[in-house]
């Protein structure tokens, strides 16, 4: 026993302390508790892992029965294998860094204790997700992180857009959970257990042709679940809105950890997936589509966090693509490297926003390189990593994925390469807009924004929101302050973690993670390494950077011309392909309208209650007819009684009943 339960317990304790007493604690104590518990958890992970390495087989600890009903027996059971170990390190490691960062970023906020309580709770659930040794415990973490995501997105609950975004995240995730839970039921039916090892063992033994239908259904449902959590098309809509949350949250939850849970889950279920080729194909296609669409949207956005959000979606699509082509190891590798650089990007963006006094629109930035050099330096590391500049971490994982994809399907490969180039382009675009050129802080008037930023639009116009956020934030510095004061560098607690992550982003790829993960994943077919693939991939990344440099540094007037030329297509992409609007139009509005006018007013109040009341009215009608006998006049009643008496007696008398 390695007391694995202590790992999630530390953050839980932090949550309880901050949640119950945080209101009365000083900020320093809150920070200490929050950061301390997570760091303790990280240390405990290190200690545990060092004890149980090399982990050729999973290390399992069973604590108690949770649910026991008939043959369904679900224990509280934690397990660590190599997959888990990687996730544990990522979660606790990056989690610790982001906690540290957040103490700086959130220093001025109201609800400081609340934020850290939620964040600790998130750590608890995320660790439960990672550690749980059966699907239901994974589901606990799965739903739990969803909850924390909901809470943290809606952290600025005074803002309608924030709470709406929270709701959206939770509900879209619920749709995914719908699939996930159905998949679980099928797993129980098929394998009579939810414990990973047992399921995988049985699944591995199932002949492909025997239960392929079942496996396909299970995997497709799992895919729905994973798509929900990992923001894959068509359930990606919540993630951009989730940027309403504080930036550390975006970094931790919506970039580094939670959103990769879908990938983690897919890799966990790899054995089952391998039995369902159709589902694998579906995973790959979903991943590819997501990657492309999100990347193209990313090119058009102005809000720095939105850009990174779409980037995240796109990168997640990459991971799914990898998983879909059977490259689970590279997928996980990308999870890790992505965690590094995307967390860094978000934290860096957070530092930028911090230094810009909560301005997020890149058109208001520019030339920040001079004001916040440390931030720029660290962000540049993430930039080159995500762009796939050779020998950075992102390059390794990306090339691994592209290699696997090529062997699966060249068409997919070329699309993926194109996407890689687009990725490099939009990241570079945001970097150039932010750090290069002249500072445009006062140049762009607020009125220049698009006028359809309506509060009640359920937040699909991020642009408008950025402005409102700026105006509405309860703690906000005065509106003009952003323009009057110059951007300033973030404090050490903020750029410290950035530095660590920057280092990891650069060197994080030298560790051959797929190889490390081999014992934990089903054996994948090894394909020959082809050098030209790497060259093409690297070239795509660099080309993207170059194009961006041309458009945004060398010829700043070019984007506008291009935009004008593209016209409708640009608008479509800029509006994120109008997926939100389509959902509203096809699902949300009919559902609410139909519920209100048909199900409630029509069916419930009209038909059913109408029938009930109709029964009552009918009875009343019949009673109304019978009522004329009941005159209410007692003498008439008496006369009737007399009539009855005479009649009865006469009958008895004549009939001889009385003798």
């Amino acid at each position, binding site marked *: 026993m390695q007391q694995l339960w202590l790992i999630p317990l530390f953050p839980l304790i932090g949550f309880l302390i901050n949640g119950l007493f945080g209101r009365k604690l000083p900020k320093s104590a809150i920070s200490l508790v929050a950061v301390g518990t997570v760091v303790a958890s990280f240390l405990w992970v290190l200690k545990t892992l060092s004890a149980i390495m090399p982990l050729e087989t999973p290390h399992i600890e069973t604590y108690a029965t949770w649910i026991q009903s008939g043959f369904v027996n679900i224990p509280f059971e934690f397990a660590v294998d190599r997959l888990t170990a990687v996730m544990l390190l990522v979660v606790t490691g990056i989690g610790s860094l982001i906690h540290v960062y957040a103490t700086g970023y959130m220093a001025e906020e109201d609800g400081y204790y609340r934020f850290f309580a939620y964040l600790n709770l998130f750590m608890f659930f995320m660790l439960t997700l990672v550690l749980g040794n059966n699907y239901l415990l994974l589901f606990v973490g799965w739903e739990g992180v969803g909850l924390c995501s909901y809470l943290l997105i809606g952290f600025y609950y005074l803002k309608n857009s924030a709470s709406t975004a929270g709701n959206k995240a939770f509900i879209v995730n619920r749709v995914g959970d719908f699939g996930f839970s159905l998949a679980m039921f099928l797993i129980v039916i098929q394998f009579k257990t939810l414990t990973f090892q047992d399921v995988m063992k049985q699944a591995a033994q199932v002949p492909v042709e025997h239960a392929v239908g079942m496996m396909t259904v299970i995997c497709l449902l799992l895919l729905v679940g994973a798509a929900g959590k990992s923001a894959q098309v068509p359930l990606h809509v919540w993630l951009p809105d989730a940027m309403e949350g504080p930036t550390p949250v975006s970094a931790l939850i919506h970039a580094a950890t939670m959103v990769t849970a879908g990938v983690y889950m897919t890799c966990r279920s790899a054995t089952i997936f391998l039995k369902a080729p159709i589902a694998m194909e579906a995973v790959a296609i979903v991943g590819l589509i997501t990657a492309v669409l999100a990347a193209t949207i990313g090119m058009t956005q102005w809000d720095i966090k939105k850009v990174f959000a779409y980037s995240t979606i796109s990168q997640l699509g990459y991971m799914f693509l990898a998983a879909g082509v059977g490259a689970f190891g590279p997928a996980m590798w990308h999870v890790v490297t992505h965690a590094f650089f995307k967390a860094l990007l978000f934290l860096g963006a957070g530092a930028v926003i911090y230094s810009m006094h909560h301005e997020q629109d890149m058109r208001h930035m520019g030339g920040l390189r001079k004001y916040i050099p440390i931030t720029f330096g660290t962000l540049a590391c993430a930039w080159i990593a995500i762009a796939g500049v050779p020998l950075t971490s992102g390059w390794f994982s990306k090339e691994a994925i592209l290699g696997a994809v090529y062997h699966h399907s060249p068409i997919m490969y070329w699309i993926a390469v194109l996407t890689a180039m687009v990725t490099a382009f939009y990241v570079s675009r945001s970097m150039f807009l932010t750090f290069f050129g002249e500072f445009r802080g006062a140049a762009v008037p607020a009125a220049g924004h698009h006028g359809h930023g309506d509060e009640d639009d359920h937040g699909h116009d991020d642009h408008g929101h950025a402005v409102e956020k700026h105006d509405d934030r309860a703690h906000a510095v005065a509106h003009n302050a952003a323009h009057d004061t110059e951007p300033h560098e973030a404090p050490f607690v903020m750029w410290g973690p950035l530095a660590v992550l920057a280092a990891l982003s650069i060197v994080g790829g030298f560790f051959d993670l797929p190889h490390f993960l081999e014992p934990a994943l089903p054996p994948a077919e090894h394909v020959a390494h082809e050098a030209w693939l790497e060259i093409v991939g690297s070239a795509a990344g660099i080309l993207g950077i170059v194009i961006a440099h041309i458009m945004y540094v060398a010829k700043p007037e070019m984007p506008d011309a291009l935009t004008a030329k593209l016209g409708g297509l640009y608008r479509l992409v800029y509006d994120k392909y109008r997926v939100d609007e389509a959902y509203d139009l096809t699902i949300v509005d009919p559902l609410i309208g139909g519920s209100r006018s048909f199900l409630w007013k029509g069916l419930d109040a009209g038909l059913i209650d109408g029938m009930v009341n109709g029964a009552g009215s009918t009875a009343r009608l019949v009673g109304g007819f019978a009522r004329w006998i009941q005159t209410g006049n007692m*003498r*008439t009643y008496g006369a009737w009684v007399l*009539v009855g*008496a*005479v009649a009865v*007696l006469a009958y008895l*008398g004549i009939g001889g009943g*009385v003798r």
Partner: protein
Amino acid sequence: MDTLLFALFAGIAILSAVVMIMQRHPVSSALALVGVMGSLAILYLLLGATFIAAAQLIVYAGAIMVLFLFVIMLLNAGAEPKPLRQSFLARALGFPLGIALIAILGFLIQRTVPPDSVVVRFADAKAGSPQDIGRALFTQYLLPFEVTSVLVLIAILGAVVLARKET
């Protein structure tokens, strides 16, 4: 003598009853009813029911009817006016039905208890003294007696509650 008394008081009883239902004025009706009750008391005596006869006078005539009279006087009820609307059925059917009832009942009584089967002689009465009644009342009919006492108690409470001034 029996026959004479019976004829006399039965006649008075029926006459009073007729007067009672024909009089428009409730006081007259009440007095006529007292007459019926008094005559009935005599008839009870003729049947040997001495205790019941006395009870009839004390309870019915002496208490219940006084209560009636008291209420009539309290409400100062006058003769019945012609009401604005009245029960057509009652007005049209009351008498014929009543006569029919008398006829049918008489017929039935004639048939079930022929006149020559039992004759009543005052001296022949076998039971009816207060001792007899008391003995039966407190042995065989104890439970009904107690129940009746509860009923009376409830009636007292009910009457008090109903007639109480709203506070």
